[in-house]
Every structure is written in structure tokens, then in C-alpha cells.
């Protein structure tokens, strides 16, 4: 248990003593097992020493094109506008290209070698390129799903069936959180400027069959940052506090009469809610940040941008939040790839670099796991039936990168075939990614289970999956 969590626990105990009505063991157990945000998880201690204390997951919702960003295919350029050899595509899943003539589509942007590692990446990512000696790039990721909604579900929950817990919920269930006055699993979304982005569903951060307190809490850039966080108009902080105190005094009195352990939990949750009403606005208020920091990220306070969310992610990490997930929408380039992709890249490139640089400056890079993924990749085939050229959904190959938390630096692994159609070397699955992330958090994915429908349900499902040990320093 961290010192912070211990303090929290002691405070709770003192509080209970103060309640003084002999709530007893059952109440304390209820409080510890279902109550507070700042509480240890079920895996205490972890299966093995953790390399990562927390996760920041950057999700590029819509499916960014690896063929323009990370996976350079000169042969595809040579074959541009020629028929895609049937040997690649026969009998395979297609999304919007069903029934279309399949033509090769060469990369639309140049690639450059970056860093000491000479990592080949797009000209669209100069800033990520500038920190590529800190990242670990996987070009051979695959997924099972080919449509957005199921693919997001698979990426977050390891299953395409609704109702499973997302990874953030699993992680806070297992590891608890060190955040005193904040939820353990926080979600932030931002949207690219201009087009009509793909929807994302709240089920992507649902706790599924795990206890609801592990569900992701969305922090919003406008209105109440947490739903219903603000006191009603005309109710001062002092008045709110007085009401909460009265509710708790009456609940405490009731607890003395009926000995229902849920009452002690409810009292603690009202205290927590009241503290959140102050702590969340404090978290969201970035005006105290050094202007140079905001400049590094490239954002203005309160602009709701991906870059702003990266600043908030860093602030959440500093406050002990266990799992932070950012979504940046509008990477679904069926069309206008050449026009739109540079805009999306620009919206995230600098901020990703800044996040890594900032965490290094604060000495937190070593124990923070950063993950950058879409929900699937894009086809080497051209899509021209939706306007100016784009690429379709693709599940045979995508690129993801990770950084921090004991991962190798400036490391690249995995490869696709010469046309970038399918991962062929060191093929990785989403379950492998999950297993690896859990491993870095000190968790053996095989032993981390929750009873559901009679099964010891796991994030990594029933098929064998492996920890990508080659990525770990």
C-alpha cells in the first residue's frame, strides 16, 4: 500500500471510530471493499513487481492509417493503382470495399528516419519522431474486428460482446488507486476539427460485470467536468457542506439503530463526493501551469483539445489516478486521406512528444505506461467510392506504440508483408497487448480473473496470449 493510501485508510478508520456506534467489522469490510476510490485493489500485493504504476492510453478513434504514419511500404508505391494481388485478399474480410475493385494505394506521405534508432516514420510526425528514441513501435498488431464499435469493444474489453469490463476497470479492480479525491479510472475525449467523426459509446469505459465503482468517469471539457459535479445555482460551498454534514449526521444516527454496513459506505461516499466538488475543478484549472509547459504541449487552457487533455492526463497521473484514457476522434479516413490525415497528425503529434518530455522532466516516465493505438488499421487498397481517395478498415495489420514503464527505448518490432496487407513477422494480437500491459503493471493475466457466468473470466479471454517480453528492457 502506498503511503497515501495508508493515510486514507487510517483516516477512514479514525472516522469510523468517531462514528462510534459500533459499526464493527462488517461495516469496515464494506467500506474497504466497495467504498472508496483511494483503496487498494484485490491484487495486493501484485503478482510480481510492477514496472508501471499507471497507464495513459491514447486512443486514436476511427483507425489511423499505419501506411501513412508508421509502416513504410515502397513496394506498395510501385504498385500504385495496379490491382491488389488476389493472393492477399481472397476470402478475407472487407468493410466498405465489399464488391469493389481492389487497387493498390501507395503511401500518400513521405517517410523519414528519426533518432539514433533510425526509426522510419511519417513526415507528418516530426515531434513523435524527435522522441522516438524513447518509444517502442510495434508494426505487426492485428485485431479480430473490422467495424468501429466491435473493434473498440475488442480493444478495450478483449471481447466483441457488450457487457465485459474495460481494461481501466480491470486495472482499478486489481490494483485500486492512489488518488485521494478522484476516481481511479478517468476518460477524456476530444474531436478533430472539421468532419463528422465516428461515435464512441460509454460502454468503452464500462465496468461490465465488475463492481460499478470501477467504471471510467468521463472528465468533460465544458459544463460540469464530472456529471452533476457542480452544486445547484444559489447553493454556496458552505451550504453544500452543511447539507452533506446533516445528511451524514442523520445517516450515522440511523446506522446506530439498524447496523446496515451500506450506511457507513454511503457516509464515506458523500464525503468523497463533497471533496470531489473541490478537487476536480482544481485538477481542471491549468492556469497555474508554467506557460512554457502549455507551450510545449501547444494548447490554451480550456480549449478542449487533445493537447489540453494530455496536460490533464499528466495532472491526473500526478494525483495518483491509475488509468487515464484519452480518445481523439476522427481518424476514419475512407476519403480525404491526403487532406485530413495531416490535420489529425498535427493535432496529436506535438502533444504526444510533450507528454513524454514532461513525464521525463518530472521523473514519472519510468513508471508510467503510455500506449498509442487505434481500434484497427487501414487497407493498403484504395477506397475511392466515398469521394477523394482514402483507405478502408483493416484488421490484419496496424501499428501501435508504447513508451515508459520499463519498455525498451528506440525499439521497433514486427513487420507486415511487402504490401503492408498482413502482419507476418512477430504477429501480435490485442490480447497480447493486454497481457503485456498487465504484465508491466505487475499482473499475470492468466491469474487475474473474476467469476462471471461460471467462468473465471479474464481480460485476455480463453485463447492463449503472450506477454510481448521482447518489448521489455
Amino acid at each position: 500500500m502506498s503511503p497515501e493510501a495508508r493515510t486514507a485508510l487510517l483516516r477512514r478508520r479514525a472516522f469510523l471510530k468517531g462514528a462510534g456506534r459500533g459499526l464493527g467489522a462488517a461495516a469496515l469490510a464494506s467500506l474497504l471493499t466497495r467504498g472508496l476510490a483511494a483503496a487498494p485493489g484485490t491484487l495486493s500485493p501484485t503478482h510480481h513487481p510492477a514496472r508501471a504504476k499507471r497507464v495513459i492510453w491514447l486512443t486514436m478513434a476511427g483507425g489511423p492509417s499505419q501506411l501513412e504514419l508508421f509502416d513504410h511500404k515502397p513496394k506498395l508505391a510501385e504498385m500504385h493503382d495496379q490491382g491488389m494481388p488476389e493472393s492477399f485478399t481472397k476470402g478475407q474480410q472487407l468493410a466498405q470495399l465489399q464488391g469493389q475493385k481492389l487497387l493498390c494505394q501507395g503511401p500518400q506521405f513521405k517517410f523519414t528516419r528519426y533518432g539514433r534508432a533510425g526509426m522510419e516514420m511519417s513526415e507528418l510526425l516530426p515531434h513523435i519522431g524527435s522522441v522516438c528514441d524513447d518509444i517502442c513501435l510495434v508494426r505487426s498488431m492485428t485485431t479480430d474486428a473490422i467495424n468501429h464499435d466491435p473493434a473498440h469493444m475488442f480493444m478495450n474489453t478483449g471481447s466483441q460482446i457488450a457487457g465485459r469490463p474495460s481494461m481501466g476497470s480491470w486495472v482499478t479492480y486489481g490494483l485500486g488507486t492512489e488518488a485521494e479525491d478522484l476516481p481511479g479510472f478517468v476518460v477524456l475525449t476530444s474531436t478533430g476539427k472539421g468532419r463528422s467523426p465516428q461515435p464512441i459509446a460509454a460502454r468503452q469505459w464500462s465496468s461490465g460485470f465488475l463492481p460499478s465503482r470501477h467504471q471510467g468517469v468521463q472528465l468533460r471539457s465544458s459544463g460540469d467536468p464530472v456529471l452533476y459535479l457542480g452544486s445547484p445555482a444559489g447553493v454556496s460551498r458552505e451550504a453544500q457542506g452543511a447539507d452533506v454534514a446533516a445528511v451524514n449526521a442523520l445517516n450515522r444516527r440511523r446506522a446506530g439503530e439498524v447496523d446496515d454496513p451500506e450506511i457507513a459506505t454511503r457516509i464515506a461516499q458523500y464525503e468523497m463526493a463533497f471533496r470531489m466538488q473541490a478537487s476536480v475543478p482544481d485538477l481542471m484549472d491549468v492556469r497555474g501551469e508554467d506557460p512554457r509547459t502549455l507551450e510545449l504541449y501547444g494548447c490554451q487552457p480550456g480549449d478542449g483539445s487533445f493537447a489540453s487533455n494530455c496536460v490533464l492526463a499528466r495532472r491526473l497521473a500526478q494525483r495518483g489516478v491509475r488509468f487515464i484514457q484519452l480518445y481523439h476522434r476522427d481518424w476514419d479516413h475512407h476519403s480525404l486521406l491526403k487532406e485530413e490525415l495531416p490535420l489529425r497528425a498535427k493535432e496529436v503529434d506535438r502533444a504526444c512528444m510533450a507528454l513524454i518530455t514532461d513525464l521525463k522532466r518530472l521523473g514519472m516516465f519510468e513508471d508510467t505506461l503510455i500506449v498509442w493505438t487505434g481500434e484497427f488499421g487501414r487497407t493498403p487498397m484504395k477506397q475511392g467510392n466515398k469521394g477523394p481517395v482514402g483507405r478502408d478498415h483493416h484488421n490484419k495489420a496496424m501499428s501501435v506504440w508504447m513508451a515508459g514503464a520499463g519498455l525498451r527505448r528506440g525499439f521497433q518490432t514486427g513487420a507486415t508483408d511487402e504490401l503492408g496487407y498482413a502482419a507476418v513477422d512477430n504477429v501480435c494480437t490485442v490480447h497480447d497487448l493486454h497481457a503485456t500491459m498487465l504484465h508491466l503493471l505487475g499482473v499475470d493475466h492468466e491469474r487475474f480473473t473474476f467469476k462471471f457466468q461460471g467462468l473465471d473470466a479474464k481480460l485476455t479471454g480463453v485463447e492463449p496470449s503472450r506477454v510481448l517480453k521482447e518489448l521489455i528492457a
Partner: protein
Amino acid sequence: MTLLPLILAASAAAPLPEKVDFNRDVRPILSENCFYCHGPDASHRKAKLRLDLRDSALAKEAFIPGKPEESELSKRLDAEDPEERMPPADSHKKLDERQKAVLRKWIAQGAEYRQHWAYEAPVRPAAPADSAGVDHLVEVRLKELGLAPGPEADRRTLARRLHLDLLGLPPTPEAVDEFVNDRSPDAYARLVERLLASPHYGERMAVTWLDVVRFADTIGYHSDTPRNVWPYRDWVIRSFNQNKPFDRFTLEQVAGDLLPDGGREALIGSGFNRLLLTTEEGGAQAKDYQQRMLTDRVRAVGAAWLGQTTGCAQCHDHKFDPITMRDFYSLGAFFADVHEPDIGRREEGMLVSTPEQEARLAELAAATAAARKKLDAAYPSLAAALTAWEAEFTAPETPAKKAKAKRKDPDAALAAKAQPILKKPADKRNAGEKAVVRDYYLSLHPEALKQERADLAAAQKAHDAFRAEIPKTLVTAKAAQARTVRILPRGNWMDESGEIVKAALPHYLPQPKFEGRTPNRLDLAQWLVSRENPLTARVTMNRLWMQLFGTALSKNPGDLGAQGEPPPNQPLLDWLAVEFMDGKWDLKRMVRIIVNSRAYRRVSTATPAQREADPYNRALARQTPVRLDAEFVRDNALAVSGLLVTKVGGPSVKPYQPDRYWENLNFPVRDYVHDQGEAQHRRGLYVWWQRTFLHPSLLAFDAPSREESCTERTRSNIPQQALVLLNDPTYVEAARAFGAAASAQSGGDDARLGWAWKRALQREPDAEELATLRKVLVERRAAYRADPEAAKKLLQTGLSPAPKGADPAELAAWTHAARVLLNLHETVTRD
């Protein structure tokens, strides 16, 4: 943290039973630790050994009945060599000493097997009739455990419990007083009857069922767009209120379209088959979604009626239960004839009109037809003008690049269609072509037949507008062609190598023979509620028990299989199941039997001895306090405040919701506009159910998204619940209305606070409670008098107007006192 293992250790140390019972004591151990590799799933079976069947286990010499020490099974459990030891290390399973002792004793006693308890037909145990039967069977179990039943709860608690359990609404203080003062011996039974006859009974019962069938207003996947189904929700409410027998209730839902005596009501019920998740995503593939929808339906039927986790058999034979992949896909094949587009927008559904609406719609259709006839009759008068026009006509130039834009313009489209025809000689044109030319002429000459055309347009518009207002609902209709269903190896829809299967009932359950024909959905529905089926009545009674006691008799209501729980009081569950079937599936009768029992009426507080001996109250020496379900948290606050609109049924409603909560929805982008008027204060079960973004106040209190069948809600206790009750405008407005009502009572502060207390909790406050609440009122009153602007701001929350002429500071202060009451744990708890 050290406490939890202690609790577990206590149960592990329980003494061994005199006679080991296979289903109660042994199967759970084997299922949890052995069946994964030595169970029903052949593809994963190790060493060709299966332990779920006695003959197979004996054939492989897994044990020697009567000789535990010589049996391979017990040797393996204690083997020193990790290679030999079972379960193996990589299974992460481990038997404790008691479990090993149970297995040894079972072998010593002959290693008898029994059919899994839930697959044997329930047998009525000896017990008196009616509620006394429940009490007899509960008390037998209590005696076994040496537990004394608790006393009956006081009348106020009973009245509150009954109202919340049967109606989902709190009683008024007057109703409680009436009951408390009614000293006649049947006062309680009469209260039960009054509540069972209330139209709100159906609303309460519907909430549980709507979870089970995953009822929602939207399609679920991707764009999560609306569909028309709310009349199905009203059908459910109506069915419970009319006490439709549960067998008929089942038939109408699964096969309402196939019932010879079905009619419109049964068709609305058949909307059940349409409640699944569907997609409108571009690029979705037909076969992928055919597979998703088939599996979705099988899981729902499995959960709702059979209490079986059928979903496990989508990719492999079930690990613990005898459900094979063939069973799974054969069950899916029953639904292969249901019309369901693979991808895209659902149809608008069947019109659910009142007789008046039907008559009016017919009138409007007749008026439209008459106007059309009049116009048709007038066409010949155009002949001369048309000929003259055509003689002079030259086609206008259409620039090629504007062609696309023109296609969207109906006039331009008409022109494009007419121009080639105009090149033909008039006498070579067919009737259709002549009509096109005429319509083109009319489009260029707005003055021609102006009146006739205007009349037709107006009639059509009136008809369409009226039709649009009539409720519509998705129902089951036969697909033009039934879908082919095959076993999909590993659940992979791209693998078409699997065998094609026809509809068939799960092979391991008792069933009729369908000689020479393939059974259809009606056969399935009839089998679900047949006497042969050992599951449906148990599943239904188990769920009902959960609704009335907080925990089901077999604690996982979605799984009565091997990994579920053998009910600690199986005779009670079986008695209820048989009673239910013998009583012609009369649900109200079963509710009546249960709530009239002494077991139901006990206090919910535990003595230390009870808590020690039975921490989870499985033996039922007492009742259990339960936090209200999400919808009833809302209903309770609205009812107490006096804002609740008690109208039953109708389109789903949209209460206040935070701005931009739907910002991540698209196709189309949607603004949430909350309702005005009475729709704002309807019960929670009518709230618009947006699957991907369920209303956040309901979500905070564990309402499920209903993307999958939900047989049991989690009951969490999280900070978001405090934020909702404190800050959601719905609750602030309720506090405001409640406070205003209290302040308008006669008497001083204490009398008025006492009135409010009684409305919220149906009991008097004690002196300390009253003092705490008085302090809130007095302090706020002083603060708002000093800052009347703040008071005015608070009073603006919500649509309902503040009483005219009242002092804002006074009203605001009372709002706070009311708000404290609405936030109490006791207020949102049914004791």
C-alpha cells in the same frame, strides 16, 4: 483487509455433512476445479477423462467407490509431484482441505452421481398450502441451522416495504396511518390486494422484465439510433396488470405471430424478438451481423427463461454444462424465420392505433383518394394545352457538371426523365410515359389544375401528418426466406465449413418428440412453459424471490447450471416452481403467497447471532435492507415531492440531462432536448433508454444499458450517487417542490419539518433528528435572507414554478431541509 479471509475461513471450516449430497456438496467442487479439462467440452478434454458422467469416470478408473484411499482422484489431489497433482498449477485452481475431505467422504459413501439439480423436474415437497408452505420450508431450514426467526416488522415498515416492492412507489403517510390503525385481522392481506390491483404494480414488475429482455429505445451498435418499440414496454406493463398467465406471456413474446388466436396484442408482445442489438454502420457485413444477432437471441432466451449461460457454447461446447455448440446453433435456428434486416435502419413497425385513430386514418385515406380521383378526372382538360406546349417545346441545356445536384431536385429529375420521351412521337408513348410528360408539363405550369393539385396535396399532407402521430412498434414477421444456420467453428462467421442445423431443443433437457417435422418458434415457446421443462418455473420464481428478498434462492439468477449455486433451500424453490405451474402460471398469486408469508414480513435488522451464523441472510431468519433500483430512486423523490405524474404508459420521456452528454454520438449528431410539461415528471421506467449513453442518473444507480440481458443488477454505493441526489436538477427541483409544500403546512418550524419527515419516511423524527434538520433550516434561512439573490437562483432550478408571493429566502431554506431528507440513506432504502 484481514477481515475478509477470516469470513471465508469460517465457512471453509464448516463440519462435513453426515451424508454427502452430490449436487449440493460435490458437483460445485468438480465443476469449479475439474470440468474445465474433464467436463462436457470434448475439444478441450484432457486424458480422455470426463468427470461429469459417472460411467465415463469409472471406465477411466478415476475412483473406486467405497475406497477413497485407493482412488486415483484422491491420490492426485494430494500428490507431491507437481506433474501428478490435480488441479495442475497452471489452472490456478486449488482445493482446500475441506473440499478434499468432501470428495473423499463422497467416494467412501459410494461416489453416487445425480442429475444436475436444475435439470430434474421439480417435485413438490410436503408443505401446507399457500403462504404457510413458504414458512414451513423456511423454518425447516432455520431449524437445521439452529437459527431462530426474527420478529415481524412494525406496520410502518411493512407498509413501506410492500409499496416499494409491489409498486416501486412510497406510501403516503395517510396510507400508512390507515394500515397502522386498521386492527382487523386481515388488514395486511387487504393491503396486499389493494396494491396488487394498482396500475403501478405492472410498472414495477415491468422494470425487472425489461432488464431481462434488454428493452431499449435505441439499436445499440455504432450510431445507436432510435427504433420504435415503446408499445412493447406498455404491453409488458399491461400484461402484468392484467395478470396474463406467464405461459401466455411467454407464447406471445416468442411466437405471438404464430399464435392462431394471436391478434394485435400478441403481435405487440412478439416485439420481444426484435429487441436485440442492430447496426447501421457502413461497411458492416451481413453475415457478421447475422451471426451476432443469432447469438444475441440465444443468449437472451437462455437468460430470460432457461437460466442457462448458453453464450459459452457459441465457440465451443460448454465447459460446465451439457450445452453443446449444436444445441446453441439449433436454438438459434428457431429464430431464423424472423424478419430482421442484417444491416441498416429497422422498418417503422406496426401501427398501434386506437379504434378512433383507425377510423380517422381511414377517413383521411378516403379523402386523399377522392382528391386524387378528382385530379385524374381533370387531366383530359389539359389535352389541347399539352399538344400546343409540346409543339413549341425545346429542351433546356443542362450543363454536365451540375447533373449530380440536379438529380436531387425532383423537378430536374422529372425533366431528365421526360426529355427522352418527348423525342418519341406522342402516339408511340405508353400510359406511364404519357403520365411523365403530363407531370413535366404541370411542373412547368403551376397555374394548370391548380385547385385540384392543391386539394390532393393538402389531403395527402393531412393523412401523412396524422399517420406520423400514431404509435408504431416493431413486431415479429416472417422473413421472406429463412436464414441458413450453421455451426460456426470457434464462433467464426467466416468459416462456413460447419454443418447446417435445424431448429432443435437443447438435447439434455426433457422434451417432446416432433415426429416428421422440424419444430418452430411456437413449439419452442410451448416447450419453455411446458411441465416437462424443469427450468422456466424455477428461473421465474428465483427472480421473483430476488425482487422480494434482495437475494435469489439460487443466488445467481442468470445461471442455474453447474457453475451456479445449488439453492441452499432447494425444497422451497421447487415448491414455488410447482405451485406456480399448478396454479396455471398465475404470477400475482405467487406474489401474494410470498408477501403474505411470515418470512417476508420479518424485520430486516439482524441480531449479532444471526449475522454471525448467516452473514448473507441465505436462511431467511430476517429480511434484508435493499437500496432502491435506479428507476425507483427517481420515482420516490418525485412522489414524495408531489411532482410525480402517475400516468401509465406512452412514449419514452426525456428528463433533464447534462448538456453535451451525447456529444460522442454520431450519424446523426444529436441534441438532447428535455421534455416540457408533464413528461418531465414521469416515472423512471419511461425514461428514454439510450443504450450507449444511458441517462446518467439512472446509470449512477446501476440501471443496465440493456445491451445484453441483465438478470441481476449490481447494487453499488458510489460517490456519483451522492452527486446525483445532491445536484441533478431533477432532485433539486423535487427538493424545491417538497420544501415549498412543507413550508405551506400549518404550524411552526418543528411541525412543518415533522410533516416533511413523515412524507419522506412515513415515520416521526426523534428529537435529535428533528434538531439536525431544524439546524439546516435555520442556518439557511439566515444565509438566504442576507443573500436573497442566491435564493432566487436556487428557486429557478426546474420547470415547475415556485409558489407565487412566497418569500424566496424562506422557500430556498425549506428546499435545503427537503433536500437533506431526499438524500438520506433511509429514503432510498427499502428496509
